[in-house]
């Protein structure tokens, strides 16, 4: 028994070492950081212990702007992307011809570099001295004036960010929902058809309940992912997100840690813990709702 024990721990050793150093220790450390007031990175000293860091972060206009941006992003993109993914998956599921081709195309954004494609989006939406950009040309066809989506009004920038976020998250959702829809047994549909059930009723009474576990899984992971939005914004608006007024909570954490306004790990820790608390709360609410509605 003793020999066996030793051997097992030996197999586990690398994983435990790495997890200990880069997950467990940081987890404890981040709590400590967030409580150390006036921490100085250079001298590694601090004045006292308390909740001042939290208070600073919560009163920082940049943080409040980041929270506002993040919440708007979450509220718009999660329902829209999930709904649109469901629509596309239903459409995919109702056809045979070219189905695989469409599925493959839709998945393409998943494997592309968010930063790289973000640049393309920026160019498509940007208005500069030489050109109004392709999107603005399209808008002109409908009689709308040129808008600078990248450096212009807040609503326009938010629109691009949401649009790009949805473009990035759709592949995963479409993939999951298509396979969920495909796994609903044809027998149910046949039975419903024999009873002359109308299509809408088939959808609400058979299809939706059958895929509800996956749908809720997507909503929950969608919320978590959207709250952690960062690189999409960087791709569109550059690294100085505070200046663009488009920072996100995660962006705020990184900016506090590093970069032009960086060097404040205590503020970063406090902000990260606030984000964690928000995500945890939302996830719990989601889970409670899903307990009531999901049919397993």
């Amino acid at each position: 028994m003793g020999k066996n024990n030793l051997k097992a721990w030996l197999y586990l050793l690398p994983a435990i070492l790495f997890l200990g150093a880069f997950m467990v220790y940081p987890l404890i450390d981040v709590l400590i950081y967030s409580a150390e007031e006036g921490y100085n990175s250079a001298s590694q000293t601090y004045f006292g212990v308390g909740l001042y860091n939290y208070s600073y972060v919560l009163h920082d206009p940049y943080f409040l702007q980041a929270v506002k941006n993040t919440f708007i992003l979450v509220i718009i993109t999660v329902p829209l992307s999930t709904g649109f993914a469901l629509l596309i998956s239903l459409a995919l599921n109702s056809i045979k011809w070219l189905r695989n081709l469409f599925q493959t195309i839709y998945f393409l954004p998943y494997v592309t570099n968010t930063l790289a494609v973000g640049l393309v989006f920026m160019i498509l939406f940007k208005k500069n001295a030489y050109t109004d950009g392709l999107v603005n040309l399209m808008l002109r066809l409908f009689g709308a004036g040129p808008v600078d989506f990248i450096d212009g009004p807040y609503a326009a920038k938010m629109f691009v960010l949401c649009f790009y976020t949805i473009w990035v998250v759709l592949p995963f959702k479409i993939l999951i929902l298509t396979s969920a829809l495909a796994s609903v047994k044809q027998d149910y549909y046949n039975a419903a058809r024999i009873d002359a059930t109308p299509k809408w009723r088939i959808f609400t009474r058979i299809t939706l309940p059958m895929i509800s576990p996956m749908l809720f899984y997507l909503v929950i992971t969608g919320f978590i992912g959207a709250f952690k939005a960062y690189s999409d914004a960087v791709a569109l608006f550059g690294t100085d997100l505070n200046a663009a007024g488009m920072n996100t909570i995660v962006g705020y954490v990184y900016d506090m840690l590093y970069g032009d306004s960086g060097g404040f790990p205590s503020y970063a820790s406090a902000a990260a813990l606030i984000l964690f608390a928000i995500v945890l709360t939302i996830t719990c609410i989601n889970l409670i709702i899903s307990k009531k509605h999901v049919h397993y």
Partner: protein
Amino acid sequence: MDHRSEFDRIERNAKIRKTVFKVVVYALLVFWAFMVLFPFYWMILSSVKSYSAYNSEHIPKFFTAEPTLQNYFDAFEAVSLGRYFLNTFLFTVITTSVMIFVIVLAAFAFSRLDFRGKSLVFTFFLALMMIPNELVIITNFQTITNLGLRNTFLGLILPSVTSVFYIYLLKENFEQIPEELYKAAKVDGTSDLKYLLRVMIPICRPTLITVTILKVIECWNSYVWPRLITDDEAYFLVSNGIQEIRENGFGRENIPAMMAAVVVISVPLIILFLIFHKKIMAGVSRGGTKG
């Protein structure tokens, strides 16, 4: 009233309704396929337009009569694109192979060996799955900085060579191998390590391939950690390179060259995807998370 014609009418109506439905469905699908593909088309198109042609088009053209590869040469000359490429390649290969090594050993211990405290340790591992990266990255940044590992490959790689989720995925897969196989091997005098190498790993190869592909995608696209840990251009990965190009490269407005760089960076993963698209999609739907 002729029953025959009544029946025909109903049938015809049903047919029309079905056709209309099909047209609407395909219209939707084609629309989104266009939305997905258009940025890729635009990126390739812009990358082959000459600098002067691009900037003289107040109204961008949807095709170009004189494609040029000049932008690609510019991209490789003006910034160290080749260097970023090599860095990312090394980072991806090393990180992925070390991770596979670590998770295979851990998954084997959890699935096949009996030891005291196993369920406790495993529960602890599972709990770690809930910890978001944002929470631990702060200390990791400090740790790596204090160890003097900024702007080194070691610093880039170390924090991302374990994944609790992949350990879990692999352990579940290992456990599906029938107990009898292990017994048969034991009776034949096979050691645990040999059983792992000769039997478990070959049987679970599909899962290992999935994990590898997912990790490769993750590595190739990783941005946040490399950005924190490298400010020396010699250690930039492609994502940071792109950002660098955007902020400082090409005198800001050389968009065709920028697009050429974007194409070059995107191509490896797209090729990987086109070859393995079935495997990748099956793997992601089983164990992927993003978004």
